[in-house]
């Protein structure tokens, strides 16, 4: 229930309480007035009857016109008092009726006495009559007194009953309403405190950076609406934060991809696409660095120019795929046969180039070349084919055959051609423009 509705209901209950208190007070006042009126009236009746009694006594003593007229006045007064309507109950009305009847009886007795005994004819009979009338009067007055007692008793009893009933009813109603108002107010207070506490807790959690937790609410009041909005706000905030993170991740991912692509491009630019070893340009760049270093350190190094034999035949007969496989196998074998400081590259086709860095003095590279040749010549199994290739190697030495890459490559290339030209040798050292310095037989 909405808090405003709760407060409204509390206000209505309080108004009802006030109204009932007010009405009860008015009712109590009304009852009291009625009771006072009845008691006052009874008192008046009592006085009237007493006055009639004393006048009757006097009339018995002085049976004259004055006594009679006095008696008439008292009787009329009593009759008038009895005829007043003051909201009696049924039983009280009966008593008033009886009093009226008794008053009429007195009237009948007076009339009879007055009509037949005014002349005082016979003293003895008058005395007897007087005695009888006196007894009759006293009987009636006595009965009137009794009736008055009954009236008093009944009035008091009824007043007591009425007041008790009223008190009980008003008490019960007020108590129930008061307890309802109190309980209702407490329930509102508890709901209010609980709602505010949840909100506060939610806000504290948010302040502490908790974007996930939600405020639990079961009611449908303003605080719940507030909590609902707060939850929504928190959800939006969480979603925005997530997007930001995602964006960052995406950027990172894209950056990584770019770097990878860049690396790939660099790799592709520097490496042979088929074998993964350096291409010509990268190889030259690499050995330029190595040359500079070796020259500074006065080290020796050798450059091998390797051209595969029998490869063209494979390529032509078995196809480019098999040819490529052969090239890749040879590249792998070359890499595996060299030190980490050595550099291997592919110039294209079936031409490889190897840089043997920092060779110890005296130069013994033949052993290395033989090792390489042995590895190259190992049978290559591709599917059902077992293939074999050979190689012609031209060798140039730093600083002996050149001081830069171009000179060294050219020298090695020249030596390789010499070796190829001479079918008896597999490798050949550069020997200037005039010949081969070292020959090796296959």
């Amino acid at each position, binding site marked *: *229930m909405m808090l405003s509705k709760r407060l409204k209901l509390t206000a209505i209950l309080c108004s009802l309480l006030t109204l009932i208190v007010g009405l009860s007070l008015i009712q109590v006042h009304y009852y009291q007035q009625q009771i006072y009126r009845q008691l006052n009236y009874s008192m008046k009746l009592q006085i009237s009857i007493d006055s009639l009694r004393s006048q009757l006594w006097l009339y018995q003593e002085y049976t004259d016109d004055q006594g009679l007229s006095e008696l008439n006045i008292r009787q009329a007064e009593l009759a008038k008092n009895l005829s007043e309507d003051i909201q009696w109950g*049924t*039983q009280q009305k*009966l008593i008033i009726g*009886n009093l009226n*009847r*008794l008053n*009429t*009886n*007195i*009237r*009948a*007795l007076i009339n*009879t*006495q007055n*009509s*037949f*005994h005014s002349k005082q*004819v*016979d003293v003895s*009979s*008058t005395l*007897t*009559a007087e*005695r*009888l*009338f006196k*007894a*009759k009067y*006293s*009987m*009636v007055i*006595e*009965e009137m*007194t*009794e*009736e008055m*007692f*009954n009236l008093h*008793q009944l009035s*008091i*009893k009824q007043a007591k009953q009425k007041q008790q009933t009223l008190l009980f009813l008003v008490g*019960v109603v007020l*108590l*129930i309403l008061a*307890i*309802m108002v109190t*309980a209702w107010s407490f*329930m509102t207070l508890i709901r209010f405190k609980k709602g505010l506490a949840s909100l506060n807790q939610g806000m504290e959690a948010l302040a502490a950076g908790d974007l996930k937790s939600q405020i639990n609410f079961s009611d449908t009041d303003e605080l719940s609406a507030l909590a609902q909005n707060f939850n929504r706000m928190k959800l939006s905030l969480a979603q925005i934060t997530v997007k930001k993170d995602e964006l960052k991740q995406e950027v990172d991912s894209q950056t990584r991809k770019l770097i990878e692509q860049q690396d790939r491009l660099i790799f592709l630019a520097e490496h042979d696409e088929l074998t993964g070893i350096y291409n010509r340009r990268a190889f030259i760049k690499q050995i330029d660095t190595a040359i500079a270093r070796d020259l500074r350190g006065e080290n020796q190094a050798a450059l091998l120019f390797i051209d595969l034999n029998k490869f063209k035949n494979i390529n032509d007969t078995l196809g480019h795929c098999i040819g490529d496989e052969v090239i890749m196998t040879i590249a792998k074998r070359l890499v595996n046969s060299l030190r980490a400081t050595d550099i291997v590259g592919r110039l294209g086709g079936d031409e490889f180039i190897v840089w043997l860095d920092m060779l110890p003095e005296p130069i013994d590279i033949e052993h290395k070349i033989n090792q390489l040749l042995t590895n190259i010549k190992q049978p290559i199994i591709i599917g059902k084919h077992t293939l074999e290739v050979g190689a012609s190697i031209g060798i140039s030495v730093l600083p002996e055959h050149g001081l830069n890459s171009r000179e060294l490559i050219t020298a090695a290339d020249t030596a390789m051609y010499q070796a190829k030209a001479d079918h008896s040798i597999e490798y050949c050292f550069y020997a200037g423009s005039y010949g081969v310095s070292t020959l090796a037989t296959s």
Partner: protein
Amino acid sequence: MIKVLNMFILAFMLIGIASCDLGTSKSLTASALKDPIKIAVSGTPLSAPFFIAQQQGYFRANGLNVELVRFDSGVKCFDALKNKQVDLATASETVVMFNSFKQTNFSVLASFVESDNDLKLLSLTPQKYQQLDNLAHARIGIVKGSASEFFLDSLLIMYNKTHQPIERIYLPAEQLIPALLNNEVDIISAWEPLSYLLTQKVHAHTNVISSRGLYHLSFNLIELKETRLSITEKLALLKSINDATDYIHTHPDLAQTKISRVLDIDPSQLSYSWNDYSFRLSLSNALFSNIQTQSQWAIDNKLVSEENRVDFRQILDRKLFEKFISLEAGW
């Protein structure tokens, strides 16, 4: 929330019921298993409070087991009490007065009804005797030594006609109307329901004078002084009669219907004199005065011996009645 409210309301209801229950106790006492209290009542509407109390269960509600024994008249009721056939009897003050000259072993507990118009002078030619004129040599039918004769004598005194030579013809009560109709008497002095029965036969005005208020009849509850009844039982009995009287006052029509059924009398007969009855419990000097006046009349007319006259205070049990009044008033 609604559940909580319901619980509150329920709790209040329980508290209310519990507190109401505290008030209603101690009404039903023992004695219901004892021999019933036998009360002799005459079969007239004057005994209405007893029949109503029996019908409405007021006797039982006040812890009494009461058996009403019906008799034709108060005289027979009193005789039954004397013979110890019953524990209590109801009778008019005239019966009480006459019996007081014979014994004083009884006492009046309370009057429960009065009528100021029960006895009437009736005639087929009432206009002739208006204001009790022309009474000389009139033949007046009366029941000897009863309220009927006392009423006539009272009227004669009050109307100053004692010197008139009248002819008293004594008849049993049931003979009064036939005697009047057969012209054996000119006037009868009769009580109800004879006046009503006469109006059923003669569709004319029969009342000689308007005698309302000149004679007061009362019916009284009488016990033997040596009674087995305890004060508590007698108080409970008075309470029952009082309750019945309250019922008659608050439900007059229902009460009349019940009485006409119990007594098997025509409702019109009942309503003929019902308004003359004033049902209430009392024991005042009015009764004392009434008995005394009647006793003086009885002595004067040699109906009883003056030597046997008693102090009437001996036969009125004021203590019990005053106690009852105190209890009722909550003093």
